[in-house]
């Protein structure tokens, strides 16, 4: 009796999770795939309309300048964000890990604030700094010699199509740094203090200690951090949606926001679904890299 219980119970325990995942992930995904083979508008959604056009939505993609524009923006946004966040994460975590540092708990909590705050609040914070009419930087730019000398005296941070994506990347670095600090803090904690003490006895400088001990031992944490931040940043679009909605003239439209706008603003549901499938495939590729990396690490251990 107890033996038979043992056999089906694990499945019973896992069942609710699996059922939810199938009904709210797998099942909708199948609908997305079938819709991506249709020409279908948002209005057709209610009438179950739309007609099959095969893979035409996918074939159109390479000829769509807005698609390539979104890819380009995504690469800039993800590239700058990831490099910025991981660098800031390593620097901040090294400060926090320092033995001389007191109250590091309080500081860590301060660093977490940008990460706890919702994208909407982060968006408003930075609108207050960059917005043409409202922003602190634009209003200050007329009177401040320092800003003028630094070349920061401009009013069009969010409305100039050639810089807006860099401004948004900077804002995203600000929001995401905390996550990197957490990951790298774990990394620093894994390095035994005895190594540093030995190096100090040998007369190594602070730079040598960082370059020869910290960096090599931190490498696996930096790598995981790079991959995870890439995965997360690639799917960020709520922040951009609130600040610029992808504008001016698509200049800050990343791939996930382009997908969203194609579906809900332009109402081209068929094409948007095709885009969303491509978006998913890119995500699955990055996630697989992450899993492969993990497996190698486990085998190495």
């Amino acid at each position, binding site marked *: 009796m107890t033996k038979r219980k043992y056999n089906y*119970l*694990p499945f019973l*325990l*896992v069942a*609710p*999770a*699996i059922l*939810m*995942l199938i009904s*709210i*992930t797998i*099942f*909708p*995904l199948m609908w*997305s795939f079938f819709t991506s083979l249709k020409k279908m508008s948002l209005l057709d959604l209610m009438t179950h309309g739309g007609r099959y056009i095969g893979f035409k939505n996918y074939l159109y993609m390479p000829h769509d300048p807005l698609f390539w524009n979104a890819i380009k923006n995504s690469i800039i946004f993800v590239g700058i964000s990831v490099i910025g966040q991981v660098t800031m994460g390593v620097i*901040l975590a090294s*400060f926090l890990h*320092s033995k*001389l540092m007191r109250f590091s*708990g309080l*500081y860590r*909590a*301060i*660093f977490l604030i940008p990460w*706890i*705050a919702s*994208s*909407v609040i*982060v*968006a*408003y*914070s930075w609108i*207050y*700094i960059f917005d043409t*009419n*409202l922003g*602190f930087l634009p*209003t*200050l730019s*007329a*009177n401040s010699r320092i800003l003028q000398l630094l070349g920061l005296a401009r009013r069009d941070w969010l409305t100039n199509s050639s810089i807006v994506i860099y401004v948004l990347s900077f804002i995203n670095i*600000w929001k995401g740094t905390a996550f990197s600090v*957490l990951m790298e803090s*774990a990394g620093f904690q894994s390095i035994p203090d005895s190594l540093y003490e030995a190096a100090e006895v040998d007369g190594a400088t602070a730079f040598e200690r960082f370059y020869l001990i910290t960096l090599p031992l931190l490498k696996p944490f930096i790598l*995981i951090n790079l991959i*995870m931040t890439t995965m997360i940043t690639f*799917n960020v679009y709520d922040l951009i*949606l609130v600040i610029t909605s992808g504008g001016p003239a698509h200049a800050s439209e990343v791939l*996930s926001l382009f997908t969203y706008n194609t*579906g*809900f603003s332009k109402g081209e*549901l068929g094409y*948007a679904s095709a885009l*969303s499938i491509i*978006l998913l495939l890119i*995500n*699955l590729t*990055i996630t*697989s890299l992450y899993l492969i990396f*993990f497996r190698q690490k486990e085998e190495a251990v």
Partner: protein
Amino acid sequence: MMNRNFKIYLGVGLMALYCLFPIYFLVLYSFEPSEAAYHSPPVFYPIAFTFSNYTGVFKSIPLARYALNSIIVATSATFLTLLFGSMAAYGVSVLKFRGRDLFLNSLILLGFFPAATMIFPIYKMFSDINLLNNYLALILPYTVGGLPLTTWVMATYFENIPKDLLDAASVDGLSIGGTYAKIMIPLSLPALSTVAILDFIAFWNEFIYALTFMPDSNMRTVTVGISLISGRFTYQYPWGQIIAAALMVTIPLVIMVFVAQEKIISGLTAGAVKG
């Protein structure tokens, strides 16, 4: 030695300034009349202290109602995520069954399904079964979104619980369900509370689903409600009220994290790094 100490404090001080600088403006302008934001040169310190934004926003939008919506959605979704996630983690880690590796790996893959991919089909499904504007329209997708991380962290935690304890429990005649309820759950309270806080924050802050699946203005969550406050023209936006509301709904989260930051850090890194 003194010199090095000073450098580190300077470094950390600058970093703290970098983290708090934008928030400082929010707090400052939330206590100023709306026109203060348009002062030129800008205001760095309080000039006309007022609470009117904090009281006024309750008249402009049903903020209390939005907060109630957010509380209902985030609490229910957190509860369901913890329940289903810990059950699945228990199934996976203690009772080894065939296909567990497949299950855990697919969980990670599902965990990174982009919201932009899921939003159209879920919208379509909920509109077909009349679930839009229902609390479930957010509770269900949030739960699914929270399950991967929750299950992953809990499974790691459960695997570290000594086997002897479970053997003793079964000798004492405790059923599998009894072991789960009377031993596993109480023992894993630290891990559970960490994931609970992380899930709650994520659900409370979520924006895109809440904006899309709750078109009725009475069903908005706080984040969406605040983002949709507007005047007739941009320059008439009640900026002071918007940020006062934004601060009010963030403060509970900040307090939560200040109290539990040590736990959150260990919980997160256990899930992400040890895998």
